[in-house]
């Protein structure tokens, strides 16, 4: 047993820190640190900086422009960027579609799409969930019917996707569509790449409980998609979708994000006063802080254990599911404590205060402005990516082998 990183890995950590010090714009990290709203341009600027350094696709092999890093390196990078308040990269192209194309895509698809993910030409979004297919994703109904016309082979897509994160910015969407209604519901699903500018694609915003436009509904009405946009084989999409869901292990626990959020929470608890003393010294609040801190310390090691086992190629569905459940619980608890720490000042909410360049007088302490909105927004963590209840079933079914 040795919990330490190797000297080479520590040297890599130092290199990442130096890079962040030099290249991460303080304008952007300042927004992340203070919980301000990030724009599409902020995301694209950081994306371009990482692309220039070749540090964008941490999970891709080198031959496709990835970093070729070990899992330990990818983990170090995740943690250090989070601690430096770098924006979270939009995962749909880099972490989700990229690995699927690398494993199942045609040569033409790889040559066309992978460079465009890296250089930011295509902003991807994900077309999985439907109004009638949430946790039961395989019951999806959006249909794709194959046909031929003067312009060649194609699919005509009809249906509706929902919860499409940042779809309002997207150039492309990867979709699970139904190409067959025969046999098991998982067997008639295909994986299709669709240009958002195609006639018949319509994006409508869904405003979430914090007032933000983060997700969308996407409607497809007789949308013509060239047949070459099919990934892999027809009716094999479920296999690719599952691969995508289990691919990204290193960051599913969000350890880096939790470490940064906890450090921020501790500062708030030191600044807030109760009974003439820092709130951090109030016995009940201190106990809440200690519980989540210990849970996070344990999670760091659990996460590293899973990474180490993944390095040996061990498939560990139940461990990945555990990271998702407890990782999201920890992140939610931290935002919950940040809200509690503010006392009555958790209530005021001036949405404009989250915009860059807001010059208004803060209401209460400055750090209060985004706290409750973040708390409410983070309720999504235990719902998306397979709800935590679905993850619990995955764990037990894997352990029971029933």
């Amino acid at each position, binding site marked *: *047993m*040795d*919990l*330490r*990183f190797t000297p080479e890995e520590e040297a890599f950590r130092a290199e990442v820190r130096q890079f962040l010090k030099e290249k991460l714009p303080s304008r952007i990290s300042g927004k992340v640190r203070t919980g301000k709203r990030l724009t599409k341009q902020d995301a694209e600027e950081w994306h371009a900086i990482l692309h220039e350094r070749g540090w964008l696709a941490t999970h891709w092999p080198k031959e496709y422009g990835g970093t070729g890093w070990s899992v*330990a390196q990818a983990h170090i990078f995740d943690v250090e960027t989070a601690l430096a308040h770098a924006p979270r990269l939009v995962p749909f192209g880099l972490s989700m579609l990229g690995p699927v194309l690398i494993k199942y895509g045609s040569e033409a698809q790889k040559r066309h799409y992978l460079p465009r993910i890296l250089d930011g030409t295509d902003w991807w979004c994900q077309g999985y969930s439907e109004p009638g297919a949430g946790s039961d994703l395989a019951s999806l109904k959006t249909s794709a019917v194959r046909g031929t016309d003067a312009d060649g082979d194609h699919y005509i897509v009809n249906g509706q996707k929902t919860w499409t994160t940042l779809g309002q910015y997207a150039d492309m969407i990867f979709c699970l569509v139904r190409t067959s209604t025969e046999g098991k519901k998982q067997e008639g699903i295909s994986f299709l790449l669709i240009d958002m500018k195609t006639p018949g694609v319509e994006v409508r915003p869904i405003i979430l409980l914090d007032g933000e436009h983060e997700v969308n509904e996407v409607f497809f009405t007789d949308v013509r998609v060239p047949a070459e946009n099919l990934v892999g084989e027809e009716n094999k999409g479920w296999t690719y979708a599952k691969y995508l869901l289990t691919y990204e292990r290193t960051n599913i626990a969000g350890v880096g994000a939790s470490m940064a959020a906890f450090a921020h929470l501790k500062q708030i608890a030191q600044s807030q006063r109760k009974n003439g003393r820092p709130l*951090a*010294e109030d*016995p009940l609040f*201190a*106990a809440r*802080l*200690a*519980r989540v*801190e*210990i*849970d996070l*310390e*344990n*999670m*760091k*090691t*659990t996460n*590293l*254990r899973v*990474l*180490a*086992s993944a390095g040996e190629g061990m498939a560990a569905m*139940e*461990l990945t*599911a*555990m990271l998702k*459940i*407890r990782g999201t619980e920890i992140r939610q608890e931290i935002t919950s404590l940040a809200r509690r720490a503010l006392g009555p000042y958790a209530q005021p909410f001036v949405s404009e205060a989250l915009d860059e360049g807001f010059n208004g007088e803060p209401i209460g302490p400055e750090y209060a402005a985004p706290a409750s909105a973040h708390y409410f927004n983070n309720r999504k963590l235990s719902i998306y990516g397979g709800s935590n*209840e679905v*993850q*619990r*079933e995955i*764990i*037990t*079914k894997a*352990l*029971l082998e*029933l």
Partner: protein
Amino acid sequence: MDFSYSEDRRMLADTLGRYLQQRYPIETRHRISGSEAGWSPEQWAALAELGVVGALFAEDAGGFGGDGFDIAALFEQLGKALVVEPFLGALMAGRALASAGGQEELIGEIISGSTILAFAHEEPQSHYDLTEVATRAERSGDGWTLTGAKSVVPQAEAADQILVSARIGGASGEQGIGLFLVDAKSSGLSIRGYPLIDGGRGGEVTLRDAPATLVAEDGFALIEDAVAAGIVALCWEAVGIMDALKRDTLDYLRTRKQFGVPIGKFQALQHRMATVALEIEQARSAAINAADALGGDRKRRERAVSAAKYTIGRAGTIVAEEAIQMHGGIGMTWELPLSHHAKRLTMIGHQLGDEDHHLARFTALGLAA
């Protein structure tokens, strides 16, 4: 990063595991646990012969281990088999003696299995507070005598020698706590032994002008280190028990049928089982962190040890209660090993500090930064 045991450690743990499977099955364990002595000199001799005691001591103390992960690998096996033999006393008292120095002969006897040690620190009023020592030490000619009471000392009656803490000076705090060896047969020492609910025996140790040999005049650092090692041991004993409970409960969910299907098909039980599995993995991580920190500097060691004992206390209760619940009525019976694992796991929470104690201590250590 490397999360596997070293070759030597794994071999000794495997040897111990095999021995316990063959020679310490649950029936044997119950017989030993319920016997008048509450432990087995024959088993102890055989286990010492295997090297299990020696692996708890560092090389410069005459052993061939003593690292946090040596303790981990062995106590994990002891936990699985619900061993009631006096290992915790050997570890804690032996470690303090080794750190104090000048005890080579005695440590040699401990490692060979010929001398049994107990560690008597906690008192009826102390409620896990390590500085709460009211037992007094008085000079008497060339030596010392001790007067006071020590509570719930594991396998106190088995011991040949008892390492006892007592105040030389001061009324409270870390200063002025000495460590002394007291011969179990000496006049002035009496033990009221009793069975424990989770097996084996404990005892109330009463000292009335009991003659004692000074081991360390300023003993608090040694006590804290011994307790840290004891906590690492208990955490890994708990991990071993939790794995056994998980294995048995999964078996039961697979085989027990109600309403025509294995009860593992029911979502309510699937969710409970998932929580149990998740808590066990977090507990194992906490135990790894503590074992890793045992040889480190004091602050890091104590924070990691308190974090682990808190986690184990919390997770242990969840795992024990859920294992019984998911087994239903049969989980309530003496006949099933599961119920004994559940009892031991729960009682580990009452040794060397419970979850509340260690949560508060974790916070206090952080604020003192």
